[in-house]
């Protein structure tokens, strides 16, 4: 991996708009539940609307209504265009076109096997092995790798000006950054060699190597896992190994693409302690591994009016029993029909005062967290407010997009 700094003055972006305009791939990451999928879809929508060109959003696990809004229901791996009508319904005449695709992990793996198996028979043997599903589903971050692999494939197709990808939830946020490297290591590594050794037809040298290197390992593995299982596993990996060259080359290319200057990362977080800690860790890791950290999106931030000190003073006075009573009296005088029951009105007034104070506490905490945030070299920090309703259509995505663009 290249550790040399490629950052220069021309790569510093002053706005989210500039970032999207100058990059070809934007990878959205962050911990679960922070609104990553919506933010990625929103970035794609606003880019298609305002910047033009063909923009694709590749999403991993969208909420049902969002999937419906993007026309994604029941389609795996195939990019579909979001009809221009949908933009018009949202009151926008888009300059470009927006496409959406969902990541189908199993299908993508099958495609890879077909591509790199030496012949159809081997491909068939791999795909039919009962261990195939289990193993591709679990080993070496298969899910994370395949997302990056699809990004590579889509980018190589040359059909899109901008590809926005939403990453799968990972145990560890950096798993998918290292997935291509680990994939290459795995195929080139000694384990695969040791594991497949007894099943290769070889001369004396092979047998000797097995004696020295593999025997204690096998004795223990057989005892733990059962010999039959080890045999099936060995056969599977022997077939799998036939794809080694193709896989390693490919994984290296995917890794290169992630480091390409046309690729940038966008870290999403809410202003809560746990997601923020993960976001900070992620920003640090991106820098360390020499990836381009383009933007940090602070999602679902409470609105600015909660920081208004004059309003806080009003709420504090209104929370007082005497003041609330006096206000209720004035309101009764103004409109006896609506405010006839003064005690009830006073109760409502104190409730809303209390509510403001509650939200103000959270807003203050958010502001403090944002102030303390060490954002590394993120060029752009975008704040997206908490919307009162769920975002479930293109209009909503464009609203988020407007906030991203600032």
């Amino acid at each position, binding site marked *: 991996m290249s550790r040399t700094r490629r950052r220069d003055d021309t790569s510093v972006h002053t706005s989210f708009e500039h970032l999207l305009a100058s990059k070809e791939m934007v990878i959205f990451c962050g911990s*679960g539940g922070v609104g990553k999928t919506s933010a990625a879809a929103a970035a794609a929508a606003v880019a298609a609307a305002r910047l033009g060109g063909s923009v694709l959003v590749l999403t991993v696990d969208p909420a049902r209504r969002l999937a419906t809004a993007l026309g994604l229901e029941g389609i795996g791996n195939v990019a579909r265009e979001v009809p221009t009508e949908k933009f018009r319904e949202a009151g926008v005449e888009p300059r470009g076109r927006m496409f959406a695709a969902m990541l189908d992990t199993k299908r993508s793996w099958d495609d890879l096997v077909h591509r790199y198996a030496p012949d159809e028979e081997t491909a068939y043997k791999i795909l039919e092995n009962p261990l195939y599903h*289990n193993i591709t589903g679990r080993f070496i971050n298969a899910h994370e790798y395949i997302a990056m692999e699809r990004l590579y494939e889509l980018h190589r197709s040359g059909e899109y000006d901008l590809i926005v990808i939403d990453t799968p939830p990972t*145990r560890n946020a950096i798993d998918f950054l290292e997935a291509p490297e680990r994939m290459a290591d795995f195929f080139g590594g000694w384990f695969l060699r040791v594991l497949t050794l007894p099943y290769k037809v070889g001369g004396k040298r092979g047998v000797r190597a097995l004696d020295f290197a593999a025997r204690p390992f096998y004795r223990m593995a057989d005892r733990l896992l059962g*010999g039959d299982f080890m045999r099936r596993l060995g056969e599977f990996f022997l077939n799998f190994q036939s794809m080694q060259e193709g896989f390693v080359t490919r994984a290296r290319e995917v890794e290169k693409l992630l480091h390409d200057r046309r690729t940038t990362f966008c870290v999403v977080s809410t202003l*809560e302690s*746990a997601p923020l800690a993960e976001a900070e860790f992620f920003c640090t890791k991106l820098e360390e591994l020499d990836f381009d950290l383009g933007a940090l999106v602070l999602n679902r931030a409470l609105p600015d009016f*909660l920081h208004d000190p004059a309003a806080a003073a009003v709420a504090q006075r209104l929370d007082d029993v005497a003041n609330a009573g006096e206000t209720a009296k004035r*309101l009764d005088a103004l409109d006896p029909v609506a405010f006839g029951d003064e005690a009830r009105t006073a109760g409502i007034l104190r409730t809303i005062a209390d509510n403001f104070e509650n939200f103000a506490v959270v807003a203050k905490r958010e502001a403090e967290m944002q102030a303390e945030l060490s954002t590394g070299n993120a060029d752009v920090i975008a704040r997206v407010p908490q919307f009162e309703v*769920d975002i479930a259509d293109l209009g909503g995505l464009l609203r988020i997009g407007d906030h991203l663009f600032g």
Partner: protein
Amino acid sequence: MNAVPEAQSADPTSALDLLGRQLLFVTGKGGTGKSTIAAAIGELAASLGKRTLMVEVDAKGNLTDFFEHPRVGYDPVEIRPGLWSMTMNTEDSLREYLQIFLKMGMMSRIGPLSSIFEFVANAAPGVKEILTVGKIAYEATLTEGVDFKWDLIVVDAAPTGRIVGQLDAPAAINELFEVGMVRTQTDWMREVLADPNRTALLIVATPEEMPVSETIELYHATEALDVRLAGVVVNRVLPELFTTAEEDTFDRLGDADAVEAAESVVGAPLEPVLEAARLAVTLRRTRVEHIRRLRSEVPLPMMYVPYLFTRSHGKRATRLVADALAAEMGL
């Protein structure tokens, strides 16, 4: 401390019985507060005098943050009176397993175990899961005198997307490994997991679209599982500000003349205060819809934990959540 026979309880589907079982797995979508709820259950159980072990499975290693206690490793550490905490580490679990069951103490001290483990754990399906679930089930069987060592084990388990794979590991291993010593170990684990009076799974959700959808999906996915569902904790529920009738009065309050009248007493600007109330009302309305969908599709006991405005994290927040859970359980 529970004597062994008393670990049984009358009604395994009752949410009020959360603390009555011995082994409670807590799952939920990322961001729903799964760890918060697990920590609060640990706090509540310990405060009621139960000898409690918390296990953090998805090793971020921050479960003890909820008690403002330094991080802990694989060996349980008492972080408050009556409450122990440990962080799962599958390599340590394998080492312990080899020592206890296979008497492979010598072998496990030899260097390459970790690289062999890397292979086995990454390539062979279910190995990491079985080492996790196996260790937890093992802790559940430990006794001290006539009592179990732990009255309650609370597991901050894998998130909704991976919990089935984790809890299903012993059953899956049974199918995959026809012979071998691993196979012989899975039966007693399944026995612990499948006992509805002893073990249950709790789902944490927030009243939002994705957490609710994942809860519904998980509810259906667990039908084939050994472990039974205890219920759902709906976390971060916003308070209801007004009754419907009061809402009309509130709406009238937004008119210019009413704002002016109020501001003559308490000063300006009142508008942000009203706006905050509107935000709370609409947010709650959206969320109530999600709770309704959850209730109509998941016939399990539900417990509600309010959104905490004034505390975000730390010991006090954990205690407040524990109190809310206690209130829901009628304690």
